[in-house]
């Protein structure tokens, strides 16, 4: 071992990743965050808690998810071998369930009988409603009014599961406003409510615990790659909205110097147009939703509206650990535009018989660019973070069809 930098020792005790992260919340929430941190510190190395988590992941979620060699896609691209980490095959159709199971187990230990969540594309809302149904918890999900419209199937799914979906009409009526509203709910009902945050953002300890719960993705992928290909991958590619599927894949590989990492942000209509959701590519550090991180904001410090064809990436911030990994240069952050993601959506569907989520399609589009620049003996692992069923209406609409 040479003296490589340790990328897995953060956050610090007070929740920072270098200058990022922290706890930027109103005083009323501090005690609840302290309690959560104490609970998580106690349980994260508790064998019973881990066993229960692992049991749920295998029997309820269906883990491990396969690492699938996309042979035809690889042949067509004519470069590195492409492996897809099939998080789309999880129960509820995306990686989100890994985290909601973990946090719901924490909620169970607090004895709180009500959970709340924010959601963009609806995947985290569905995953939260699912686990709430299973544990018999009361569940309310905040969702931007515009997202309620564009993700109607997921809204109905949540209702079937017994959750109440609350449309948020303030601000830009998307994910960031849903998160504001969930925070307001939490501050009001802090005594009996557990807030299940859906990504690696928010005040400490959320970025840490969501990362830990999602790291199952990377731990499996690492082992599977070693078993199936006999070696580590050369590159990892994952889409980044808040960044939970990406950090989940990357984290267990951070110490593997030979593994390059690419976090793919939503370039929307093009980063140069300003209509995108790529704070790491084109934003600056600031404070929103309880943490310091890269943000999309104007010269007065107002958060600006984002654009992406994919509701799950349509967020002006990003998890603080990604901000730090960007500054450290350990992960490369790039952007893929709407049209490139849509092309990859169609191509993956036709080439591999897998309909990917529009979010994951951003990662696939970048892998398509990357593969031909690499040798045929090299390996790229792409996180196929979710399936595209929820996006059929969006894509059909772009095709001029009404379902």
């Amino acid at each position: 071992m040479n003296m490589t930098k340790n990328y897995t020792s953060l956050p610090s005790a007070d929740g920072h990743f270098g200058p990022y992260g922290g706890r930027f919340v109103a005083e009323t929430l501090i005690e609840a965050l302290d309690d959560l941190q104490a609970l998580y510190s106690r349980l994260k190395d508790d064998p019973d808690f881990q066993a229960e988590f692992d049991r749920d992941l295998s029997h309820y979620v269906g883990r491990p998810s396969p690492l699938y060699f996309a042979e035809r896609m690889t042949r067509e691209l004519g470069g590195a071998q492409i492996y897809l980490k099939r998080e789309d095959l999880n129960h509820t159709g995306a990686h989100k369930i890994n985290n909601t199971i973990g946090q719901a187990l924490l909620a169970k230990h607090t004895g709180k009988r009500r959970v709340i969540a924010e959601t963009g594309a609806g995947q985290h809302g569905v995953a939260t409603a699912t686990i709430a149904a299973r544990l018999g918890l009361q569940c309310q999900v905040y969702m931007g009014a515009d997202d309620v419209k564009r993700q109607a199937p997921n809204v109905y799914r949540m209702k079937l599961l017994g959750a109440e979906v609350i449309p948020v009409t303030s601000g830009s009526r998307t994910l960031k406003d849903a998160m504001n509203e969930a925070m307001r709910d939490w501050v009001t009902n802090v005594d009996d409510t557990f807030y299940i945050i859906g990504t690696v953002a928010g005040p400490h300890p959320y970025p840490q615990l969501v990362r830990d719960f999602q790291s199952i993705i990377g731990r499996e992928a690492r082992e599977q790659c070693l078993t199936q290909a006999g070696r580590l991958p050369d590159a990892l590619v994952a889409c980044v909205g808040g960044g939970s599927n990406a950090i989940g894949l990357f984290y267990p590989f951070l110490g593997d110097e030979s593994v390059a990492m690419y976090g793919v942000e939503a370039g929307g209509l093009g980063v140069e147009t300003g209509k995108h959701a790529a704070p790491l590519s084109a934003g600056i550090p600031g404070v929103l939703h309880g943490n310091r991180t890269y943000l999309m904001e104007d010269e007065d410090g107002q958060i600006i509206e984002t654009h992406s064809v994919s509701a799950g990436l349509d967020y002006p911030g990003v998890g603080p650990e990604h901000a730090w990994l960007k500054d450290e240069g350990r992960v490369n952050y790039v952007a893929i535009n709407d049209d490139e993601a849509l092309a990859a959506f169609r191509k993956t569907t036709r080439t591999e018989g897998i309909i990917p989520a529009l979010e994951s399609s951003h990662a696939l589009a970048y892998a398509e660019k990357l593969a031909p620049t690499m040798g045929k003996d090299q390996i790229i692992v792409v996180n196929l973070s979710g399936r595209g069923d929820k996006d059929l209406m969006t894509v059909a609409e772009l095709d001029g069809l009404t379902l």
Partner: protein
Amino acid sequence: MNRIARCFADLKQARRKALVTYLVSGDPFPEATLPTLHKMAEQGADIIEIGIPFSDPMADGPTIQLAHERALAHKASLRRTLETVRTFRQDNVDTPIVLMGYDNPIERMGYETFAREAAAAGVDGVIIVDLPPEEAEPLNGYLQQAGIENIFLLAPTTTAERARHIVSLAGGFLYYVSLKGVTGAGHVDANSVNQKISQFRELTDLPICVGFGIKSGDTARLLTENADGAVVGSLLVDKMGQMPGEAPEKIAAAVGELIAPIRAALDS
């Protein structure tokens, strides 16, 4: 002596409670702010809090959220807020001005620049809702240099141990958040407020003001049994929001009419 300290010293001598009033800078339109500030002082506000417009006012209820949206629709900003304070100070050199808001606009301006320009404009204190003491450096240092007080929040959930730490860093006064919730909420419990404030009282000599959910003179009086003052925000902001098409003087007068009875109730 800082204006805030002088204000509380005078109030103590007169055995009066402080009335602290709030508006959002630029709400419902920029020209309304200055006359309303003067009217507030004229009708007996001892301290005025000016909300710095922000796109994501996470700790505010619907009333004040809408005020931020109205102000931003008119391109209100931290910079324009400071200009307003500067103009206010040309005619009023006594009433303490406290800026209340969220970290990001301040961070964007730059902590050092903000502290310097706020002091030059005549700002006496700041309340930054999402900047708890743990995150308050390096801003605190710049504020101290500039002679601006950093006013921290205490909440119903704040433990005694934590409160001891907070009061050791706080300046000006302490802002006790009367309830678990957002601004303008309606479920405040006077007994628990009075009890909690008397506990915090043991820990500090700084004045304690109570806010969130004060909508009438009666509530103001009930909640200040052990506190040094009451903060009234949503009640006034709600009124201003109903008058987007009115003349600035008319808006100021309507706010003044709401303040006068609260002043009288606090003095009775």
